[in-house]
């Protein structure tokens, strides 16, 4: 346990030194300020929005779910940025710089080393994601007196998505150089988001082909599926036209959801970690 804490602390100090936290905190502060501004004006002008009389739209729920969906997207993005920069060079990068070899020959072993780095990055990212998500919830509640029907689960799913990205980044750090790994993970993240949007379009157009492609992408990249499931949960109180309008937007929610995808996400995380450990065990340094 002492070795785990030592290595996790080592990674943490490295991140502080490389100003990873400073950059992410500045970006987060900018985002939260803009988000507060947007929430303030949107909810302030809610009374002036008048949909047609025969169309019943719950404007507060629509605005709240839409804004929180936006906040969740930004939180996921910032969380992924933090996750990638904490882990992209854990193996290849540190080995190239000669930082890793003196640590690996110590009795702690490669598995402990890698899992400690995973644990360190995971704790930091989970705390970060939950904090930003919680602040966004607070801003919406303060600005518009709206809270989603599910509060904890969407935040935990977002955090889970980021943890999966950490595991993928660790796999990449064993087999790719730092730069290549960073590019690969951000492209995977982008591919996941595009697949999620494609799913929304596919359902709006009733295109089975697009829906099928989106479903495959959701299972292949479950961090995106967890994020989508989180979106579904925050808009659970919307009904009728309000729900339909939310479904048409970019923060509409998942078509693959429920316990199946959560269990698969947990299994996917375990598999990714096992692959990373196996690859690291076989890697010459």
């Amino acid at each position, binding site marked *: 346990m*002492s*070795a785990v804490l*030592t*290595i996790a602390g*080592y990674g943490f*100090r*490295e991140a502080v*030194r490389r100003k990873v936290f400073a950059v992410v905190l500045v970006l987060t502060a900018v985002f939260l300020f803009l988000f507060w501004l947007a929430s303030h004006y949107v909810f302030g002008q809610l009374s002036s929005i008048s949909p047609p009389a025969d169309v019943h739209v719950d404007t507060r729920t629509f605005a709240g779910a839409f804004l929180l969906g936006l906040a969740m997207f930004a939180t996921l993005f910032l969380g992924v940025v933090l996750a990638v920069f904490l882990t992209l060079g854990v193996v290849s990068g540190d080995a190239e*710089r*000669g*930082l890793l*070899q*003196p*640590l*690996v*020959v*110590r*009795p*702690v*072993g490669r598995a402990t080393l890698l899992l400690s780095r995973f644990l360190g990055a995971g704790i930091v990212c989970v705390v970060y994601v939950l904090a930003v998500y919680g602040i966004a919830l607070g801003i919406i509640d303060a600005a518009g007196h709206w809270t989603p029907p599910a509060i904890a689960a969407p935040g935990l799913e977002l955090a889970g998505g980021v943890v999966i990205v950490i595991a993928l980044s660790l796999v990449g750090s064993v087999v790719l150089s730092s730069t290549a790994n960073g590019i690969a993970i951000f492209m995977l993240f982008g591919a996941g988001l595009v697949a999620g949007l494609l799913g929304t379009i596919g359902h709006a157009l009733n295109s089975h082909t697009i829906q099928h492609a989106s479903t495959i992408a959701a299972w292949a990249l479950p961090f995106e599926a967890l994020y989508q499931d989180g979106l579904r949960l925050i808009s659970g109180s919307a009904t009728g036209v309000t729900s339909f309008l939310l479904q048409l937007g970019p923060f509409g929610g998942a078509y693959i959801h429920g316990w199946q995808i959560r269990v698969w996400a947990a299994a996917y995380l375990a598999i990714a970690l096992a692959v990373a450990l196996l690859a690291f065990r*076989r890697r*010459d*340094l």
Partner: protein
Amino acid sequence: MPHALAVEGLEKRYGPVRALKGVDLAVEEGELVGLLGPNGAGKSTLVKIAAGLVRPTRGRAEIAGSRAGSRAARAGLGYLAELFRFPGWYSADEVLELHQRLARSNGGAAERTRLLELVALADARDRRVDGMSKGMQQRLGVAQALVGSPRVLLLDEPTSALDPVGRRTVRLLLEELRTRGVSVLLNSHLLSEIELVCDRVAILLAGELVAAGSPAELSRPRGIELETEEGVRTVEGASREDAPRLVAEAVAAGRKVYGVRVLTSTLEETYLEAVGGETS
């Protein structure tokens, strides 16, 4: 009693390149063995396999009877890589503290003080690695390798960045380690250094062991030089043991002997002969 370090039939391939072609080598307890060879001979690969950083393609490498790279092997091992770096924001003391924790050493501050004194870095205890010269970092690397009092030490070019004083510090340190029974495999390009401190020398060439023995064994006799009134005569192939007989024969033959000198080849000459002038 297992060897402190033993490799048998060790082979390593990097794609089409055969870095090691079946090397056998043993280091006994308390023995200091020097590894020589031109660039690309496979010296660092051998050391990395022994440290568990590189997997052998074939063959066996053991540290005190445990498979190289296993937890048991790593527990009694100290290693200084050829190319290494410590986090620049750590102080010398923090680097050693980090390695104490990872090596599960309970030596505490006293061990760190002793190690920093051993490598003449006591005054730089709180200096950050970023602010150290290359030589200081290398000495800190040597101190790091000694954390936890390892029984086997693998040093890959430990003096490459050191000035003559730093080299002497490391040489004295190695001699002290030998008296404590620590086994050392020293990979170095500095023949004089190897000759001064090592009990045995192994010369690698293109992944093969081409010569091994004590520096004295490798420094083969080249003959006896006899100075008489007729001038200087060299008796090739004669050894130190032949000197009294040669002198007696010369005197018996009525010669006046003014001097006699035993000629031996230096380790450098033996090395150059073994590697055939190869540099890479």
